[in-house]
Structures are given as structure tokens and as C-alpha cells.
């Protein structure tokens, strides 16, 4: 085991962590505001990846521009998902377990919907990976550096949004105590819709960068990655965006560094192991609990 191999693992880990951070923050934001897990979230990633495929391969657009458009369209999908599918159940005051059954049913529906349109074959974007750059001990392609920059930019913007804007403060309030937020005059419905939009946007972006990162993808792209996202989300404390960022970093590094020691087919087992340890010993997450978003 040479040192350079470990540095390579850390390099891959940073990229996986970037993909994971986008996905994990998108899931945890929506959880924080609505207080239930969306098991169809993996399909937001898949839908984002395939929408970008349409623009990139079908309309010959630049992959990063395709990614942005796909992110916006996935946000619309997530918004409609909330309005058409989730809200009827919220209005009837359905139990949470029923909501979870609904989201997993929609997961199955959406995944097979994508498969019905695009088929089960592997798809690939057309985009040169770019020249290989040496940055310190790391070797990155230009594409990988852009992925890391996108994730970093998204995390900084999210921080600004949550900390300094009215919408961000409203989301945090709603996440702390929904009833209190409502009687304080916060338009909870509108804030919830924004949370879904944001969740879909981040999920869509995560799907595209995940598809770039794994190179070939099928309609199972998102649902197969979902439990790695769960691991990152639970590690950081479910519903906490900053925790999800930290969780993404830890899980991403752990997965890729371990892959330099053993068969890389088992790297998801590492993510699963961390998930199990967290649930057994610290289910509230590694960050001290002080409000959820």
C-alpha cells in the first residue's frame, strides 16, 4: 500500500463527497420542513440525470448547461410531486406511515416511468472528461474539479440562504416548530413549496453529477444511491443541512479510501456499516442537536 494510492482514494472521496453533499442536503432540507422521509427522492436524481441526457445528447448542449436546466425542471417535478401527490394526504391528516408508503409507491412508479421512456440500457453523456490536472498530491480531471466547485458553490449559497434571507429563516423556523411558525404569521404552505423546489433542484443536480461520475447509468441510478444518501443524512442528524454536508464528507471519504484497500464492489458496505453504527449508538447524528435546519 503506497501513500499515493491513499491520496488517490482521498481524491475520489472528495468527488463522491461532493455528489453526496448535493443529494444529502436536498433530502434533509425537505425532511426538516415537512418532517417525513421522501423515499421517492432517489428518483429526483434519476429524473435529473435523464433530463440532462435529453439536452446533452439529444439537443447537443453543453453538459453543465444541461445540468442547470435539468435541475430547474426536476425542481418543478418535486413541486408538482408535493402538490399533486403529497398534499391530498396531508389535507386528510394521513398517518406518517401512510405518507411513507405513498412516497415508496411513487418511487417505484417514477423509476419504471423513466425506464418505460428511456429503456433499461446504459446511457452516457457526451462530454470530454478534460485534461488531467495535478493539484497538490491529487490527480483530477477538469470535469471532476467542476463537480467539486459546483458542490462547494451550492453549499455556500445554501448557507447564505438559510442564514441571511427571509425564506431561509422561515424554513428554519418551520423546521423547529411548524405550529409556532404558522401562528407567527409565516406562510407555511409557501415555505413548504419552496423547500420541495429546492429539494428537487439539489436532487436533480446531484443526479447529473452522479451520472457524470459513474460514467454509465440506468434508471436504477437514483434508487441505488439513495441509501448512501440516507447514511450521510443520518450521520449528520436527519433534517440538518450542515450535518448532511459533514456526513457527506465523512461517508464519501470513507467509501473511496476503503476502496483502495479492498474490492471496490463492497464500498457501499462501508457506507452501510457507518449507517448501522450511527443508528445503534448515536441516532441523533454527530452534530449536537439545536433545532433541525
Amino acid at each position, binding site marked *: 500500500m503506497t501513500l499515493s494510492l491513499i491520496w488517490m482514494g482521498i481524491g475520489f472521496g472528495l468527488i463522491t463527497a461532493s455528489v453526496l453533499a448535493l443529494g444529502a442536503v436536498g433530502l434533509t432540507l425537505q425532511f426538516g420542513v415537512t418532517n417525513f422521509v421522501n423515499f421517492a427522492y432517489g428518483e429526483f436524481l434519476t429524473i435529473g440525470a435523464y433530463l440532462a441526457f435529453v439536452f446533452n445528447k439529444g439537443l447537443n448542449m453543453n453538459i453543465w448547461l444541461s445540468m442547470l436546466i435539468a435541475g430547474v425542471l426536476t425542481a418543478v417535478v418535486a413541486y408538482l410531486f408535493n402538490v399533486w401527490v403529497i398534499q391530498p394526504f396531508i389535507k386528510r391528516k394521513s398517518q406518517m406511515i401512510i405518507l411513507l408508503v405513498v412516497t415508496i409507491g411513487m418511487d*417505484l412508479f417514477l423509476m419504471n416511468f423513466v425506464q418505460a421512456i428511456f429503456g433499461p440500457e446504459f446511457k452516457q453523456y457526451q462530454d470530454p472528461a478534460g485534461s488531467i490536472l495535478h493539484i497538490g498530491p491529487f490527480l483530477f480531471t477538469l470535469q471532476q474539479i467542476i463537480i467539486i466547485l459546483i458542490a462547494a458553490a451550492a453549499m455556500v449559497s445554501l448557507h447564505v440562504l438559510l442564514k441571511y434571507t427571509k425564506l431561509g429563516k422561515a424554513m428554519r423556523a418551520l423546521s423547529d416548530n411548524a405550529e409556532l411558525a404558522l401562528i407567527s404569521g409565516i406562510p407555511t404552505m409557501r415555505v413548504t413549496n419552496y423547500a420541495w423546489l429546492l429539494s428537487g433542484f439539489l436532487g436533480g443536480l446531484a443526479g447529473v453529477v452522479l451520472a457524470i461520475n459513474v460514467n454509465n447509468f440506468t434508471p436504477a441510478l437514483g434508487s441505488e444511491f439513495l441509501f448512501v444518501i440516507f447514511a450521510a443524512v443520518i450521520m449528520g442528524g436527519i433534517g440538518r443541512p450542515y450535518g448532511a454536508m459533514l456526513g457527506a464528507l465523512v461517508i464519501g471519504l470513507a467509501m473511496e479510501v476503503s476502496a483502495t484497500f479492498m474490492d471496490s464492489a463492497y464500498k457501499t458496505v462501508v457506507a452501510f456499516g457507518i*449507517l448501522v453504527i450511527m443508528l445503534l449508538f448515536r441516532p441523533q447524528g454527530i452534530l449536537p442537536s439545536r433545532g433541525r435546519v
Partner: protein
Amino acid sequence: MLHYLLTLAIFFAFFAVEAWGLNLQFGLTGILDFTYITFVAIGAYFAGVAAMTPSTNGGMGGSYIFGWQLPFPLSPVIGGIAAAMLGVVVGIIGLRRLRSDYLAIVTVSVGQIVWMVIGNATPLFNGWDGIVGVPQPYNSVMNLSTNNYEWPFLGISVIVAAIIFWLVRSLTESPYGRILRAIREDENVAAALGKNVFRYRMSAFVIGAFIAGISGALQIEYIGAWNPSGWTTLETFIVWAAMLVGGRGNNRGMLLGAFLVPVLFTEATRWITIPAHPLLMEAIRGMAIGLLMVLAVRFRPQGVIPERKRVFPLTTIPGLKEDVANGHTAQG
């Protein structure tokens, strides 16, 4: 045609058993098991390798563990116990947290991990190729052809299904079942009455997993082979849809659900093929199952045959009748 109907009848028994197990977990206790098929598969694998001849390791049959050549009633029991043990592990990780989403997350993750590990770790159950040549119960003495063997196997399936039905019915109608329903309705109230919610939920989850394993064991001993492409996410939700349509909480409803969804809808639509896109029908079937789950809980959450509403007449409680007669109302 008779051959086909017999096969359907046998599959009906498999699915009915699966639905009873899931109904015990979700319908009765309110536990979200989003990877039910994994317990079916574990039951199938372990029953299979318990019944097979020892592996020649790398020979024609591939490599696998065990190879104990156990006779029929023992091999399914091995399968059921293996599935129950996986249930204990999953329950320890996910059931201690009171929020139901944690267990759901654990089940989704466990399903993916088990699927991936069984596929990649070839020494266990011969990896992605799966195990083949599982002996059919007692056919080494009966020496029947595949077509003629279906009658005795239907008999075996019906007997096993009847035993499982008796088991779930006894559990449902007993005080134990009443506590499970109480936990489903409000676990805090059940805990306040001194019931150990974790222990009850754990036991219901594990018994459900055992029943799933029994169904898987029956399936592998009928089909004779098992590999990872046979137990995908879709299979879990076919059972879910059957349970929701049949009427969760109702064991008779499970029979109807197992007939309507897996047998009538899934098996019968295998006749429909779209020549240009051979896999399109598979995707449409998946969309339909997902949509069916959502529409079922939206428009008929109680299912076709609703759970019987339990009413406990006040007159059976000594002293209460007089209170009611005097104008006092019993609350709760």
C-alpha cells in the same frame, strides 16, 4: 391449460403466505418493511442449500454453503429460521427508534446490501448465477415428471398455507394480536399501559420474517433455482400492493389481495408482450404496481375487505352497565 392453472394455484399459495407475513408486520403492527422480498429470498437460499447435495466447488452446480440434503419439512424450517434471524438483526438496528422512518430506511439499505453481497460473494450462494438443481420434495421417491409433480406439490403448498393461516389467525385473535393493534394505533398509549413496545414490535417483525422465509423456501423447492434477478424491489411491492388492496389487518383480505394483484394482474399480464420493446411491459407493470399502492391508500385505505372493527360491549365489563344506564358515558 390445466398445467398453467395448476402453476397459478401453487403461486397463489406462495403469495398468500407472503401476504400474511407482511400483514402481520404492517397490517397488524404498523411496521414499514420495504424489503420484504429479502426475507423471502434468504428463506429460499437457506432452504435450498439445506436440501441440496454438497457443493462440488466450481463444478457444474457452482459453489454454495451447506449442502445438508435435509428432507422436506426440515429444509423450509431452516429457511424460515434464517429469515427470522435476519429479522432480529434488522430489528435491533431499526426498531429501537420510535420513529417509523428509521426502520424503513434500515430495511431499504439492508435490502440493497444483502442483494449486492449475495451477488458478489460467490462462495455463499453462487453469486449472480444463483443456485440451481434444488431437489423437489419427495420427488426422488415418487419419480414424477414435472407436469405430474404439480398435483402433490399443490397439496404440500395448500397444507403449508393452511398452517400459516392458522398461525396468523391465532396470533391476530389472541390478546397478543390485540396488543399489536394497540401499538399500531398509538404506541405511546400501549407503552403507558405497561406494554414493552419494542419487544412486541420485534416479535411481530421476526414472525413476519419467518413466514416470508417459509414462502421463499416453498418457492425454491418448486422452481428448483434461485438467483438475484428473481428478487428485485418490484417483488416487494407486489406483496405490498396485494396487502393494501386486500385490506390490511385482515387475514382473509390477504387471500383476495394475493389473488387480485400477484396472480390475476402480474401473472396474467405475462401473456401480453410488446414485440418491439420486450422490456417495456415490465416497466409498465412496475408503474402500475406503484400507482396501485398510492391509489389504494388514497381511495380505499381499508382495502377491499376491511379489517373487522373490534367492538367490546360495555356489558361485558362488570359494573359498567349500571353506570351507562345512569347516564355516565365511558370514555376511550
